[in-house]
């Protein structure tokens, strides 16, 4: 295998890894804000891909604006889910497992709803760029793959500044650390939690729209990616935003290179074995987040 093939593998692994990272970021935000586990991320990714396809391809809206519209729709959906379902269940003092089950039910509703709205035939998401490949240092790279990586990293940086430099971000962090103390200081914890769920959904939807042009759009697009994103979150340190992105990237690189250099048959085995290894040996993940150990 020559160097250009390794280069292409690296770009592909970074592209898929950054998508895992975005999904993992959503898991981290939800966990940090509400201490809950949500299984809707993968299916919101699918919904995002369908919404993006509708805005960009069917309605002819420019890609960047379509991306913002898709994120806005998912953001509203995320808030509605938190306020309309999750919060209502929590108010009834149900166990956390019921909330997790509710998110599984919601994920199926989103999946089946997408099938109802857009059908079950795989749809083509047209290319965003006029060229199919660009050559960078002798490596043939699909511009959409590069876009995945760059946009994901940009989102990570934006989110970092939002959480650390803005008043609302600081409120969100305070609410996640001690909700009672935050409330006593006048922070609207309900609002910060809702926004966290909204942001998580928005990130998943953006991930869907980014990979749509690479993988096409179909109703189970997010199923496997959602699970891998969860693994990425655990590897990085469940609940840690930076760990989420790093964990996603590591998972993308390990599974892509192991499939190519060891065996493609055991690609998923290797990916999930990595998850188990971390859970047993370092449950706090790379960034030493104590969520799972707690």
């Amino acid at each position, binding site marked *: *295998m*020559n160097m250009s*093939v390794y280069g*292409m*593998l690296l770009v*592909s*692994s970074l*592209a*898929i890894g950054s998508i895992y990272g975005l999904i993992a970021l959503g898991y981290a935000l939800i966990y940090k804000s509400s201490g809950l586990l949500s299984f809707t991320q993968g299916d919101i990714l699918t919904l995002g891909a369908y919404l993006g396809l509708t805005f960009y391809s069917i309605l002819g809206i420019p890609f960047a604006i379509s991306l913002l519209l898709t994120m806005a729709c998912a953001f509203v959906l995320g808030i*509605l889910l938190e*306020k*309309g*379902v999750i*919060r*209502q269940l929590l108010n009834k003092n149900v166990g956390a497992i019921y909330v997790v089950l509710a998110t599984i*039910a*919601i994920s*199926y*509703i989103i999946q*089946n*709803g997408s*099938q109802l709205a857009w*059908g*079950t*035939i*795989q*749809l*083509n998401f047209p290319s965003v760029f006029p060229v*199919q*490949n660009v050559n960078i240092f002798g490596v*043939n790279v*699909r511009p959409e793959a590069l876009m995945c990586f760059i946009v994901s990293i940009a989102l990570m940086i934006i989110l970092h500044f939002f959480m650390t430099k803005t008043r609302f971000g600081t409120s969100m962090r305070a609410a996640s650390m001690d909700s009672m103390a935050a409330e006593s200081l006048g922070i609207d914890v309900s609002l910060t939690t809702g926004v966290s769920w909204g942001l998580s959904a928005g990130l998943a939807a953006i991930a869907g729209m980014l*990979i749509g042009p690479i*993988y*096409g759009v*179909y*109703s*189970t*697009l997010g*199923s*496997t*990616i959602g699970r891998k994103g969860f693994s990425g979150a655990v590897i990085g340190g469940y609940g840690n935003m930076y760990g989420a992105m790093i964990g996603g990237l590591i998972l993308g690189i390990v*599974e*892509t*290179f*192991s*499939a*190519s250099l060891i065996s*493609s*048959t055991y*690609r*998923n085995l290797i990916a999930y074995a990595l998850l188990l290894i971390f859970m047993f040996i370092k449950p706090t993940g790379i960034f030493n987040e104590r969520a799972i150990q707690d």
Partner: protein
Amino acid sequence: MYKKILALVLSVLMVLSLAGCSGGNDAEETTAAPAGETAAAEGGEEAEGGNAEGGEAASGDTFKIGAYLQLSGGNSAYGVEARNAIEIAIEEVNANGGFNGVPVELVVYDTQGSAEEAVKIVTKLIEVDQVDAAIGSINSSEVLAAAGYLNDAGVYNFGMGTSPTWMEEDWPYVFRAAMNNGNAVPATVELVQLFGYTSVGTFYGQDDNSLTTAETFEAACEEAGITVTASESYDTGDSDFSAQVASILASNPDCVYISVMGEAGPLIVQQLRQYGYSGIIIDKESFMESQIDIAGEQNSNYIAFANPYVTYASSADCDDEYMKSFLEKYEAAYGECCKTDSAYRGWDTIMCMWEASKIAGANDSDSLKDATHQISGLQGLGGTIDFTAGDREAYQTVNKFILVDRKNIPVDQWMEEGGYDAYKEATGNEK
């Protein structure tokens, strides 16, 4: 107050959606014969009784066909198109006197893509609906799980999956009016040889059909002296195939063979092209219109395959009179052309059953089963249907095509017209 209303609305929506999702098996779709045709049929010949082994005789007012198809979930478009074609075919049958004067009625259940559901449905078809015949899913795994129960109950039935596996079972009541991917393998190997290739890299799915066909292909290649340079696979649900593509291309094969299912096909083709592979791709079956839409027209060039038939963008693109007539009927009924060949399988299945009823002069399962073995020279959408070989398969031959500029051209014609030289010139490949 507002929060409570919102919670109530969302809860109701969720419950309704869940009911909709889980109600697939209970939601029964029935296509009954038009009243006029039923009246006409009443004057027709009464169906004869069958013996105990052949199940209940078709002695009712209608000949009831039960179908278990995937109508929801990923890849359900294939099942939906098959059901559409079955409905058109039944209309045609009923307009022409039904099965020996008895109008045909269709009962359809949704398997949701699950072999377990298929088994439950088949049990219901046998015990509750007491169908006279049955049609099995496009998904071979469902047919493999369920057709045995129909066979044991002595119910005349056809499967529509293309895997070799389930037809290897000793099930005398089970037939197929679609291609057998395994039977197409020798023709596929001939394609490799025709292009002068001596090595091939294979890429296959882990599902039963893709895996079995790929294994048969690799064994046939070995026998023909063709080297398999790399053998890569993927799991259902995977969307990134870059690692496998890189490994295959690194092994430097003359061509790439893909044995894959549904939505993976166009993604693999797309990623092969993206990684710079411009050579001929050999597919285990036709590369359909729906797949070209995803992979892109340019990327879909030079995909060769052996299959009885191909798909068309519209009936206007089709030159074959019988196929054109079917496509026009489909377009008239559903407003657009079918994008997958599963519609062809549905139509051919009903036509085979109809032909068997004509030969048998009776509608009981045993008579239909025996008569099916006598079908010969019947016009099918993929050519001549012939069951006389005794293997319960309709199509004994396949045609070789190559996809160029969104047109499926017979390979012999393409070679004669200089297509291969044009391909070499366009791609810069030596072969």
